[in-house]
């Protein structure tokens, strides 16, 4: 049991396993995200990042293992665990037939906020994320980047202490990306914790203080950026860790000449 001297990690994954039929997507993922850290999760396509994060926040039931958020087990104490986390899943639907504002107000009030607070937070988030122009657009008609932003807004709405973000910068324009980075930085500086997954090594290197590399459903390296990097660039180290044979410059024969 964690004591007051040793605050529990913001997120703790212990031996998570997930099988889809004959294929094991996640073999054994064990991770601890200390409170107050900015944690990057990197890995090649299909490595099990989304699956692991889904299990971490209670969107997918693991076949084995545990996930704890600030010490509260995601499956044994769902209410306690999930009230302290904000989630941005990758590629899931939203209530598509609402406008951005309607969606945020609706979710805020489902989280038990008063009408005025809900309206004020929705306004502030729409403003911050530059979504006010799309006032009369249904979420259904949002572009990919706008979907990311409104998803991020839903994650921030209730003032969580931990953010779990799956590919938060994918398809987001550079200006919005800068805003989001600023928001996340400020959140961590204020004592919050962030876990994000990404393919972009440079971004993780710049933004995060800790990183875990997942390959083929296993954690192959984890620690502070400097530890994982071990003197190399993160990108080189990543390629080395995931064991991809770099094939060099190859192109279709009729284009290469």
């Amino acid at each position, binding site marked *: 049991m964690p004591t007051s001297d040793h605050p529990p990690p913001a997120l703790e994954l212990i031996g998570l396993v997930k099988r*889809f039929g004959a*294929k094991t997507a996640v073999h054994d993922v064990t991770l601890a995200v200390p409170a107050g850290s900015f944690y990057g999760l990197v890995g090649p396509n299909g490595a099990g990042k989304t*699956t692991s994060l889904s299990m971490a926040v209670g969107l997918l039931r693991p076949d084995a293992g545990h996930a704890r958020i600030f010490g509260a087990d995601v499956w044994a104490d769902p209410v306690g665990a999930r009230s302290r*986390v904000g989630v941005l*899943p990758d590629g*899931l*639907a939203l209530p598509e037939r609402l406008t951005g504002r309607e969606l945020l107000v609706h979710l805020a*009030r*489902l989280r038990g906020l008063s009408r005025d607070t809900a309206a004020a937070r929705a306004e502030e988030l729409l403003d911050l994320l530059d979504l006010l122009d799309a006032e009369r657009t249904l979420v259904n008609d949002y572009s990919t980047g706008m979907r990311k932003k409104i998803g991020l807004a839903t994650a921030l709405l209730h003032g969580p202490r931990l953010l779990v973000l799956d590919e938060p910068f994918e398809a987001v324009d550079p200006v919005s990306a800068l805003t989001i980075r600023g928001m996340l930085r400020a959140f961590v500086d204020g004592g919050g914790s962030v876990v994000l997954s990404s393919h972009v090594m440079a971004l993780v290197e710049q933004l995060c203080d800790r990183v875990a590399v997942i390959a083929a459903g296993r954690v192959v390296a984890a620690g502070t950026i400097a530890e994982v990097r071990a003197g190399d660039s993160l990108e080189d180290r990543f390629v080395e860790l995931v064991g991809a044979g770099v094939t060099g410059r190859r192109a279709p024969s009729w284009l290469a000449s």
Partner: protein
Amino acid sequence: MAGVLITMRLRVLANSLTGARAANMIVGGSSGLLLAVATIVLAGTGLVPEAVRTDLFALLLACRMLGWILGPVYTGGGDDGLRPEQFALLPLPPLRLAFGLLVAGFAGIAPVVSLIAFTSLTVHASSSVPVGGSTVSAVLVSVPAVVLQLILVVVLSRLVVALLAFAVRSRLGAVLSALANASLAVLLNQAWVLIWVAVESDLFTLGFPAAYTEVLRWLPSSWGLTAVRAAGDGDWVLVVLTLGGSVVLIGGALALWARLLVLRTTTRPVRWAPRGGGRPGSLLEGISQLGTTGVVAAKELRTWSRDLMRTHLFYYSVFFGVLYTAVPLIADWRGMLPWTGVIVAVMAAATSANLFGLDGTALWLALTAPGRERAEIRGRQLAWLIQVAPLTVALTVAGTAVGGDAGTWPWVLALLAATLGGGAGLIVLLSVYALVPVAEPHRRSGNPLEAGPSFGQVIGALLLVCLSAVPAAAVAWAGTRSGLPVVTWAAVAVGLGTGVGLTVWGGRRAATRLRDTGPEMLATMRGGQTRTRVVRSSAAELPKRTSQLVTLLWTLCWIPLFPQGLVPLVMIANGDTERLWFAALYVDDPWRIPVALAFSALGAAMMIAGTVIPLRHRAATRRSAVVPAAAAGPILEDAGG
């Protein structure tokens, strides 16, 4: 290019020929062939009296054209073999692409069956030319007439599908396609009325009324027939006019279709932008003041009015109920009108049994805000009741005022209360217990026919909602039977009681289930889970013949169960004397009830067999081995990452 498209289409058709599809194709093909043979027999023999022969022939030709036009609407939106979008990037002029797709469209079973049917024109030419006419000319003209007729129906079918695909991207289109869909369903269900009217008015000896004949002759479906008869009479002007008219019509339809293809692949539908809606004082804002349940209900009501699929389903229920009870008015029988509201309520429940499935993976939001499952369910129930109850009450009151009597009121009120309450309870139960994954809302093309609810789920909900009305109906029946109005009226209380009970109980069970298995539901919708999917898709793994049998049982069981079984029973109980098309009412008294009961039993038995056969097959499959993942179809698309 047409050759490439034809091979592509045949390849696609062959690759997508799963058990159920093959069964459909065989059932459809053989019944079409049967009808084709019937047409030929009608055209070439003296089986049918001369007075109606030509008219009936023209009517069959018109039906076949109508089938081509409505068929794709009914089966879910046209040719899914080759979609124009797939060729949008090819450097081809639109007319050429349209022509290529049209030609490719002839590669299939339906066009071949229709070609056979249209050879009836040649048969007609060789056998029906009046004395003094030229059989040779008629037969010669019939050859181009047959070809043109076939091209015409195919191109019209393509054109209508294109128009529809265009229209359904708007709210109005969703409503109109609901009307078209409901009309066809009602036509299939109530065709007996039309046949009965035909028999009653001695159509077969007196011939069609002149006005019908006139209209029928002018329809494009009859132009080939007219050309053939004109050739026999030596009226070459009319031959040129009708055949030329067909060519012009084909050309025009093709040009319009080409234009629509361009529009379809290069424009996006006009987006609907919401107005106010949530301002203080509006109804929705008022509802959302009712705590978290109200918030969910407000979101649901917005979705009901903005999601084309939900709009389509809701209007389908309304049109179905209204048309269903209106068709007997042709026979001047108003006795069905009081039941309009009840039928609408039952259909609205049947088409709403996949609430979570239609929302797709948006369920994750409910999972990340735990403790709100009860509100999530109750809000959906509240929204459904707000959507359905006022309308059905109004329809019931109006229908009973027009078509009922003092004895009808307790019946309809009791059953309405029972079905509304039962519906509100069962839709949420089925939505969580029998979730059917459909295309994600933001990945749908906007065509509500494309990702509709599954047939099995609709049927299941339909049955359960009907069952939920049994206690109220039983009490009402007892009251009518014993002549005690007090008892009959007590049925209203029973209906209210079972309704409220089911709403409360169903909501509670659904909320518990949602809390316990939310992640599994989400996994099902993401398509990443094998377990649930294997169970679902096993219907398609039935052997072809068994699958055909099950389809047949489910298609036909309604006729003995409802129109020939339960409805006559209710009518006997009510002392109605109209016999109409109810077989049981044509026999004498000691036998009326047994015959109606026998029909009901037959229908129920067919239904039970239709349920048990796949279940037993499923159980046997499960016992024999773990189903390999590959058998479950494309299940692992999203599993990685």
